[in-house]
């Protein structure tokens, strides 16, 4: 593999507030290859969604990128002027949001929204755009597309709406789709349909996906590689199988153990005591050390870097000098 599709180098995101700078995401780096499904998991407030928004240039003030680079096809996209970024958005990077009802305009028909997006990014005539829109709706599995194209979002069910949103994200064949909690608002049975759809479409078109979620089950069956985020940093990154079944970082271990599994009988779930520190109250050194069962003295002084450990990389001082 030559140059990866997307490179994030030492990205930091800050919020300037009256009470000083709050660093929400600190010095994270990862790469996404073409056609890959890359998962980002973590608890709420870990910085997953901010990372996704930073990539597509939708950070809301006062949030801003305070350091690092985002490269798409080896070109920097984090410092593009607004107009250029607007053209890139949708054309090269698509986005699927959590709530399909709020990400569609309730006053326009589905067809009009699709056609508008297609015409913004291509030179299609109205008829060509409409045909493309119909083709997309069929592709995402909406029955009776000819009839449905003239309907409004409220006439669709949750799962169908999310299919429309996926069609919108795919409409000009972007290289990358950022899916921020695409199935959280849906029932398990519909969730399975949507994930299968997303996976198949991306395989077919060679689209890479960044899948942001808090649900390890979704990651386990969809993603190729995964990053576990904690308090604005990547705690562990590696192939899904390794991270899910054999996590190395103490936080990732605690997280995996706290998920109830069908068929595994136990009286109590393993739990990590305490909760993730708020953004203004992050401890010094490794942010996880106050809750970590293996913490050593050094942990509250030194910020750990991502170190190779087995097949994954974990940011933990325990692994320095190739220790256990």
């Amino acid at each position: 593999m030559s140059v990866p599709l997307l490179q994030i180098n030492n990205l930091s995101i800050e919020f300037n507030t009256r009470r000083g700078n709050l660093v929400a995401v600190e010095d994270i780096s990862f790469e996404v290859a073409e056609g890959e499904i890359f998962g980002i998991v973590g608890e709420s407030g870990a910085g997953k969604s901010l990372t996704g928004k930073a990539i597509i240039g939708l950070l809301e003030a006062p949030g801003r990128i305070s350091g690092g680079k985002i490269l798409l096809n080896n070109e920097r996209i984090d410092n593009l002027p607004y107009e250029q970024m607007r053209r890139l958005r949708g054309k090269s990077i698509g986005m699927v949001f959590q709530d399909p009802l709020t990400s569609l305009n309730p006053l326009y028909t589905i067809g009009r929204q699709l056609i508008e997006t297609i015409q913004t990014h291509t030179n299609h005539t109205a008829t060509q755009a409409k045909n493309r829109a119909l083709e997309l709706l069929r592709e995402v599995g909406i029955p009776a597309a000819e009839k449905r194209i003239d309907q409004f979002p409220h006439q669709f069910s949750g799962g169908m709406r999310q299919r429309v949103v996926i069609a919108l994200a795919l409409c000009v064949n972007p290289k990358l789709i950022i899916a921020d909690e695409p199935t959280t608002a849906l029932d398990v049975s519909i969730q399975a349909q949507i994930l299968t759809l997303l996976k198949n479409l991306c395989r077919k078109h060679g689209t890479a996906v960044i899948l942001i979620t808090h649900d390890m089950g979704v990651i386990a069956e969809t993603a190729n590689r995964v990053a576990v985020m904690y308090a604005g940093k990547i705690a562990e990154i590696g192939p899904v199988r390794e991270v899910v079944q054999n996590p190395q970082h103490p936080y990732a271990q605690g997280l995996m153990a706290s998920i109830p599994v069908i068929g595994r009988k136990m009286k109590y779930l393993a739990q990590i005591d305490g909760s993730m520190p708020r953004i203004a109250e992050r401890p010094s050194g490794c942010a996880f050390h106050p809750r970590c069962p293996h913490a050593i003295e050094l942990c509250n002084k030194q910020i750990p870097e991502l170190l190779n450990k087995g097949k994954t990389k974990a940011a933990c001082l325990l692994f320095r000098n190739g220790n256990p």
Partner: protein
Amino acid sequence: MSSETPLLKVDAVQRFFDVSKPWLNRVLANEPKLLLKAVDDISFSIRKGETFSLVGESGCGKSTVARLIVGLYPTSSGSIEFEGTDFSTLSKRNQMAPLRRRMTMIFQDPYTSLNPRWRVRDIIAEPIRAFGLTNTGGISGSRLQIFNRVAELLEQVGLSAADGDKYPHEFSGGQCQRISIARALASEPDFIVCDEPTSALDVSVQAQILNLMKNLQRELELTYLFISHDLAVVYHVSDNIGVMYLGRLCEIADKETLFTNPRHPYTRMLFNAIPDINMSGKERIPVSGEVPNPIEPPSGCTFHPRCPIANERCKRERPELQIVDSHSQVACHAIEEKRNMEVHFI
């Protein structure tokens, strides 16, 4: 499922909501009344000390059942008995209060179920005051008693007594849920209805809350009705499980039976859809179709349009819950007729 009197018995309960247009419009347009059958003829019972779970997709009526039981909605028909006393026979508040005190509820969203203008201490003390659960006379004496009781409750759920002075917004989601639990425990209940208590929480916090609930159940001999759409959580907490679809129960079984040998086609579909965290490589078979509109439910068995083994009888005749063996009850014609369904499910 056992001969002793159950703590809670729900018998043929129905709850309809009138969703028709305003009277005048309806009469002018000559339209009939429209009824949404949120809960349609449901029966189950819960023994003391057990955890009974209701699972199902959104809109299947799980939460309505919860609200019917605690009395937030009146039933349209059917009876709910608590330790053998039918609620519908009690009409006066002072007759109902002693029973109502013994059943409380924990809601899904911890932020909206706590009054943001009240201090945590007052939130937790409200049931104590409402039910007059102090025994010493005199206002100052009972005030001190309430203060101590609230402190005790806060510590019981893993918070500190000093947290009573704070307001709900000062707490995280998990801590708010602990406060909700403390409030539920304040009236010294025997039975707690938990409506999706952990769905709004992160997994690591969810584990803390579930462990806390289990501990409390053991210490205080509580009985839970647990409502959730997360099957893994349900597997972890329950003794018996009821699966709901469009306002009806389609299967009731104990946990082991249900998860090792699900019978109803809907239960099987639901289980097939669970994300596989063990990555055994098994392909998920997505459930085809969606939940139909509950205002115009399909005829006969409401699941028949999505069911791979449905036949003419399923379209005509509504199946009733039937006892299959000592562990489970299923409402399905295919099970009764012993149709072969193995070809459709793995």
